[in-house]
Each structure stands twice: as C-alpha cells, then as structure tokens.
C-alpha cells in the first residue's frame, strides 16, 4: 500500500469503473436501457425534473418531514431512554416489554392507525417518523446509562457533584457516542420508511413521485428519484458523521462500538482506557 493518497486514488478509480460499467452496458444493449437507463440519462432527467418540474418541491416536502420527525425523535429519545433507564430497576423491568412492543410498532402499520386520528396531513407523517426514530435513540441512551463506569461516578461523587452534575458531567459525555450511533441509525430508518409511507397515503413527497413514475413506467424518472433519495440519505448520514466527530471529539474512529460484540475487548479498552475490576481479576494480558 502506498499511503492514504493512493487509497483515495484507488477508491476514485473503483467508483469510476462502476459508473463506467453502468454507462456502457445499457448503451451497448447488454441490459435494456428501458429497464436500466445509463447514468448520464439519469442525471440529465434528474436535472430536468429539478429545474423544470416540481421535483424540488417534493424533495423539500420529504426532507421537512424526515428532519421534523428526526428532530422530535432526537429530543424525545434521550429523554425517554434516560428516564426509563435511570430511575428504578423495578420501573425499568416493567417498562422493558412495553418499550419493546412500542419499538416494534412498524411505521407503515402505525401510519394506517395514526391517519385515523390525525388525518392524511403533514402531522401524521411527522408523527410516524418521530415514533420510529425515538426508539433507537432511547435505547442508546439507556445503553449509555447502563454501561457508565461506576468508578467515574464514585470520583464524581467524591468531588461533591450533585445528581444533576453527575448527569451533566459524567453520564451525558459517556453516553454521547452511543447517542450518535442511535441517531445515525434512526436517520437511516427514517429515510427508508418515509418513502414507504409516502408511497401509500400521500399526494406529495418523493415516495409519491416514485409511485407516479412507476405508474407511467418511466425508468429514468424512477432511477432519478432513487439517486435523489439515496443521495439525501447519504448526505444526511455523512453530515451526522461529521457532527459526531465534532461533538464527540474524544473518541477515536472505531470500526464498531464494542458494546454488543463480545470479542471486541481491545476496541472497548481502546475507547475507554479504564481499569475495571474484572480485568484485574481476570489476569488476561491486555
């Protein structure tokens, strides 16, 4: 390997090769361009739709729904997660099945129920997305609360921190990386399920646009919408990733947060270089 510059170059080359294949295969009629249009056509259709037709309006509508729901979820999720994870073991035990059931409430199923109460306006879609995004974030808040290092809490108490101070100075910073993981997962879910919901019960938004393109079967339009939705999801995820590494600057870029993988002790210790009692007694040479 010739350093990071070469890797970047190779990455670009791979992307270029893939796009070139996609361009050439339909042009040579290896695959029918009626089914899979070449990217140049997709991009020109996309530009046309954005400039001369009202795709930009639908994009804005979808984006507002997704961001609105995600914002509500990002506020409610940590609140619920810390509340149910923190107060009493009894409450936590009883809340577990309730929260588990609530988090399984499938957004597209929920949509049919929410529509009964809130109508087919904007509110019902934002509600469904908010519901969907709340739970992953709430779970990561609870996970943060559960895994917080007891020694840190002891140190905090020894320095005379109030419970609120403990939360603000120790629990919240500890949970922050986990919260961001939950947030990014929620953002991914929200884009996927928003499109599904919009395909069912709306007359606006990108999902509706996909259904329209499907009915007047127009492959370039379908691919243009797919490129747009995937691009939006990708940009959102990248933005959250940058935000994550700005806010949670103290954790390194790890491959996978090691909470759930039993074998990732090394990564765990790398992220949190703390001496745990079990490490001392376990006698493993880490």
């Amino acid at each position, binding site marked *: 390997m010739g350093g990071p510059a070469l890797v970047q170059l190779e990455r670009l080359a791979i992307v270029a090769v893939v796009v070139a294949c996609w361009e050439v295969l339909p042009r040579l009629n290896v695959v029918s361009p009626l089914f899979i249009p070449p990217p140049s056509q997709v991009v020109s259709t996309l530009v046309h739709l954005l400039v001369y037709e009202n795709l930009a309006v639908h994009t804005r509508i979808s984006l507002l729904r997704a961001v609105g729901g995600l914002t509500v979820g990002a506020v409610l999720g940590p609140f619920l997660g810390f509340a149910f994870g923190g107060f009493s073991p009894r409450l936590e035990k009883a809340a577990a099945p309730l929260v588990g059931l609530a988090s399984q409430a499938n957004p597209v199923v929920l949509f049919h129920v929410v529509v009964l109460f809130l109508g087919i306006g904007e509110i019902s879609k934002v509600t469904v997305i908010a519901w969907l995004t709340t739970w992953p974030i709430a779970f990561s808040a609870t996970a943060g609360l559960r895994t917080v290092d007891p020694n840190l809490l002891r140190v905090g108490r020894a320095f005379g921190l109030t419970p609120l101070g403990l939360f603000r100075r120790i629990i919240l910073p500890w949970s922050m990386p986990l919260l961001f993981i939950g947030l990014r997962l929620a953002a991914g879910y929200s884009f996927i399920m928003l499109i599904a919901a919009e395909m069912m019960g709306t007359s606006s938004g990108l999902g509706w646009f996909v259904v329209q393109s499907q009915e007047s079967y127009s492959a370039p339009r379908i691919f243009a919408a797919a490129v747009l939705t995937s691009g939006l999801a990708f940009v959102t995820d990248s933005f959250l990733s940058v935000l994550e590494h700005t806010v949670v600057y103290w954790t390194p870029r790890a491959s996978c947060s090691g909470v759930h*993988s039993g074998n990732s*002790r090394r990564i765990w210790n790398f992220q949190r270089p703390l001496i745990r009692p079990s490490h001392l007694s376990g006698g493993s040479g880490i």
Partner: protein
Amino acid sequence: MEALANEQRPPTKLMSSVQLTIAKRLFDRLWAVLAVGVLWEGVTRFHWVDVDFLPPLSAILWRIGGMVLDGRIVWHTALSGARAIGGLFLALATGVPLGLTLGYMYPSVFVILQPILRVLSHINPFSLMPVFFLFLGLGNQATVVVVAWMAFWPIVFYTVAGVSEVDPDLIYIGRSMAASRFRLAIMVVLPGALPTMFAGVRVASTIIFFSLVGVEMLGTTGGLGWLVHNCAMNYQIHGIYAAAIVVVVLGYVMQLVLADIHHRLLARSSLVDSDVTPNSNDHNAFPCDWKAL
C-alpha cells in the same frame, strides 16, 4: 458469594411458593403492559375517545381470536414468515461470504471498496421497487429480493467488523499448526466472528421485519402487511388494529428469541467480559455503527 449464600439457605416453602415466585416475576415484568391494556379498555368503554377510531382492546382481541380460528392470521403469518426467512437466508448466503472474503482475505480491498459499499448501502429499496418488480414480477420473488437487499448490508458490514475483531493469537495458533487460509477462515475466523455477525443478523432482522410489511402493502397479495392494508382500504378498523397487534407482538417475540440466541453466543465465546456484555434485560438489537465502517 451471594449465590453460595442463597444456595445454602434451606428451602422453606414448597411448590406453591415457587409458583408464586414465578407469578410475581411475571407480574413484575408485565404490570406496565397490563396497565396500558386496562387504560385502553377503560378509555374506550367510557367513551372518552371515539370508539369508531379506537375500538376497545377486548373487542380487538376477540377479533384476533376469530381471525386465528378462521385461519387468516395463520396463513398470512406463515406467508410473511417464509418471505422474511427467505430474504434473510438470501442475504446471509451472499453477505457472509462477501464479508469473510473482504474482511479476512483481502482487507486492503475492503478499504478501497468501502466508499462505494457505503453509497450502495444507502440505496433506498422502496424507491427502486418498481425496477425489482419489473425484473422479477409482482409477487414473492421481488419481495424476497427487496428484503434481502435491506438485510445484506448490515450482514456484510458486521461480518467484516467481526472478522477484524477475532483474537489474532487464535489465528497465529492456527497458522502455527499449518492450517490453510481457507481452513483458518472456516475453523477459526468464522466462529470467532460469530457473536458480532449475529449482532448484524439482529439489526438485519429488525430492518427486514419493518420493510417486509411495507413491501407487502405495496406490491403483493397476502402477508401481514397486505392484511393491514386490506383492512385499512375496506375501513375495517377492528381488522387494522388486530393485524397491527399481531405484527407488533410477532416482531417483539422475534427480537426476544434473537436476543436470547445472541446472549448464548456471547456467553459461549470465551473472551466475554462480564461487565462489558450487555444486561440480559437488553433485548433490543443494539444499534451498532455499521454504516460508519
């Protein structure tokens, strides 16, 4: 020490106390769910909400019973289950070999492919569904492929992560015993990566269950999603709630079972650190940062 003390304590009560303990533990877990059920029933019985829109829970449970008896629930659940399992197996059959190849055999290739894999993983299958339908027709095949597409990415990324986290000492030992690379991959790397891979399976199955219902509403006949949609289109409010409750409970049970398997796998792998592994109460697939890979 505590466990020892408990064992030494003489068993004072007989069977009834054991049953009582089980009942109490069940109640400890379920009282919140029961409370919500009672609240639902009360609110509707006293007509504090519009009963046309929110029927009483008892009526919905009665409806579920009826739908189980006339075989509808069983049939649609079996159909959805077969599609979900088919999608998961398709994703496993393609994703695990790819993840093993990229993570273990050619990690440098993975570094190069990473951006394009990340872009591909963000492709929204719902927006490409018309294309899937065009190639595979409306029906089971397209549904399974769409679902498998969703499940494929977490499985690949978690496999790569799991493979990279296998204890290198184990691989050295295998190599010193002159195991071939393929044999190492099958005998050492795959079992070592299994707990992490299973975390990926959990995430994938959550996504599968969410998206399968959506796909069934849009492009097939039959299945639980179709059942909900059909009831909604025919204004059978009881039917919507009945099917929705079945979907939710099934999803929850699936999560519990998967969590149990996952904890068994974690407990089996010798490297488990007791205070790093999650609490056994935690039955939800922990959102691992697989897109950040």
